């Protein structure tokens, strides 16, 4: 079975040149991940509700549709999952190995993963929706991961 072509599933920046810092970075990361891991377009299509990601300075919302992903500045719509993290935590999250479309989060059983879990447990890394939408939360991490 052939994988979908990443270019058939573009990543759009809703605010274009006015996109804030994290929106631009997330859009670049998603674009490159779809090029490197074309099978992740199928994972993106499973994210039926928006998710938002915040660092200290700014927030973006990722909305995955059937034909494209749109990254918005700030919070748009009603995200089912909201990740609020420091840059270091986002760097760690994006280096977690996730298998089975995120449902097998093997990266959490590493030193880096345990560090993240501790940060979540202590509230230093906030993942709103982790309890109510755990699969979505895991899929978002899998989508943003740079690890194959």
């Amino acid at each position, binding site marked *: 079975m052939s994988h979908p072509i990443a270019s058939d599933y573009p990543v759009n920046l809703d605010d274009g040149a006015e*996109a*804030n*810092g*994290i*929106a*631009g*970075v997330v859009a*670049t*990361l998603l674009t*490159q*991940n779809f090029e*490197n891991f074309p099978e992740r377009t199928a994972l993106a299509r499973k994210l039926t509700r928006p998710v938002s990601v915040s*660092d200290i*300075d*700014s927030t973006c919302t990722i909305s995955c549709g059937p034909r494209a992903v749109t990254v918005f500045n700030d919070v748009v719509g009603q995200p089912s999952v909201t990740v609020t993290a420091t*840059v*270091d935590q*986002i*760097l760690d999250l*994006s*280096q977690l190995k996730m298998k089975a479309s995120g449902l097998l989060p093997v990266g959490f059983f590493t030193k880096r993963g345990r560090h993240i879990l501790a940060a979540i447990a202590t509230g230093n890394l906030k993942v709103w929706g982790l309890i109510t939408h755990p699969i979505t939360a895991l899929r978002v991490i899998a989508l943003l991961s*740079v690890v194959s």
Partner: protein
Amino acid sequence: MTDTLKFFSEEWCAAAAAAHQGDLAVRQAKALRDPAKANYILAFEVADRPDLISHVEIVAGHVKNWSATNLYPEDQIFARFVATLEHFRDAAQGRTPAANLVMGGKMRLAKGTMKDAIENARALNVLMGAWGDLPTDWDV
């Protein structure tokens, strides 16, 4: 006569390369994901200042060459970072780590992959953080 070096001048680049020895070189290499395979050329450019560019050649995780005039061909550039002078200064003087500037979009990754930038973010912090120890004249 001044004892400071103009940012991204050839003299400044030579000083930056010379500084990446000993403990700093060890820390730099350790921060890389795979130092043995870290053979590439990085470009640093000040936004809207085409005269302020420097290229760094890294071999096996260590700085081998750094220049503002003897620049490498475009096809050899592995990654390019573009930021304002103020943001380069922020990174150099430790106010904001370079990786935070990249992840916050203030230092643009104009060439290269986010994967490499993320996996080697801490090495970038070490590399640019060390610029703060150089006697830099930022009035360029």
